[in-house]
């Protein structure tokens, strides 16, 4: 038996037709794929830049600016440098209407009285670590502040009756 008789056959002119068939199919492959192949490295770097921008944006958004606002509010509350709240203003107005003597007092005066009282309270607290409210202060608290505001005030200023 001859070595390597090839029992396998192909149709006539098969290999010429095969070449044409392959080239025809290859020409039908969409050319737009080359965009991604050619610019793959550029797209890679662009994606990386976008990712870094995204991360930077997230970090910047979460910067503690809100906390510093909170801190400022806390400081204001402690020193009571802020203007009276709307509710307090309304109460003050009501008391003014009820108490003619207080009508001449401006909101600022009342507020500054408030400040004085609180400063006094704070000074007392600082000096002796003891605290008490004068009659004036008590009266003020009863007249001008509602219960819940009283409690808040007391809580913030750590005043005990």
């Amino acid at each position, binding site marked *: *038996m001859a*070595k*390597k*008789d*090839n*029992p*396998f*056959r*192909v*149709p006539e002119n*098969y*290999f010429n037709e*095969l*070449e044409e*068939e*392959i*080239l025809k*199919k*290859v*020409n039908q*492959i969409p050319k737009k*794929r*080359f965009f991604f*192949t*050619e610019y793959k490295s550029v797209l890679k770097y662009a994606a990386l830049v976008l990712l870094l921008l995204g991360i930077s944006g997230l970090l910047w958004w979460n910067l503690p600016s809100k906390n510093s606002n909170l801190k400022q509010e806390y400081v204001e509350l402690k020193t009571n440098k802020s203007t009276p709240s709307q509710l307090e203003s309304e109460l003050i107005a009501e008391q003014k209407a009820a108490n003619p003597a207080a009508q001449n007092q401006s909101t600022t005066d009342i507020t500054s009285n408030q400040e004085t009282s609180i400063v006094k309270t704070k000074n007392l607290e600082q000096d002796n670590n003891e605290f008490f409210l004068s009659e004036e202060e008590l009266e003020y608290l009863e007249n001008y502040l509602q219960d819940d505001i009283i409690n808040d005030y007391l809580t913030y200023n750590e005043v005990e009756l």
Partner: protein
Amino acid sequence: MTDKELFDLLKHKNTQEKGFSILVHNYKERIYWQIRHLVLSHDDANDLTQEVFIRIFQNIDNFKQESSIATWIYRIALNHTLNFIKSKAQRYKSSVKSFEDSMLDNLKADKYFDSTDIELKLQKAILSLPEKQRLVFNLRYYDDMPFKEMEQVLNTSESSLKSSYHFATKKIQESLLEEEKVKFDFSD
């Protein structure tokens, strides 16, 4: 045309199509026969050959010239063909008839195969080999591929390939001698 010249044509977009048509012209027969000896059927070999060349075209930009163009092409062809055989064999897993028997039956009926008795017996013996030995045997016996080149294509050491070929030929000879008193000459 040298490998480098062909590679230069393939790398540049303007000359890529020209380079690819040269590549197809040079390698179409070798690739076809390599596939045909594994799948046996002309129709399957025809489809697979076309798919392989389309894959080659789509992956030209990924070719890093770490091996010769021929090695690169054969590797693609063999991987694609083996995947095809595996997927086809999967369908026969639960079947009564084995995949190899099915291939032999198709071969007998194939009009592009000279189905003499001894040829069928030889193909049956080759089909009974383990996949690696069958692969090595086909590349060596039918394609005359040197072991050095086979080493790069299959990523296996030359000594291992020679050993596989040796065992493959022994098994085939034993198988044929059982049925026929004719010896095939498998000498290198």
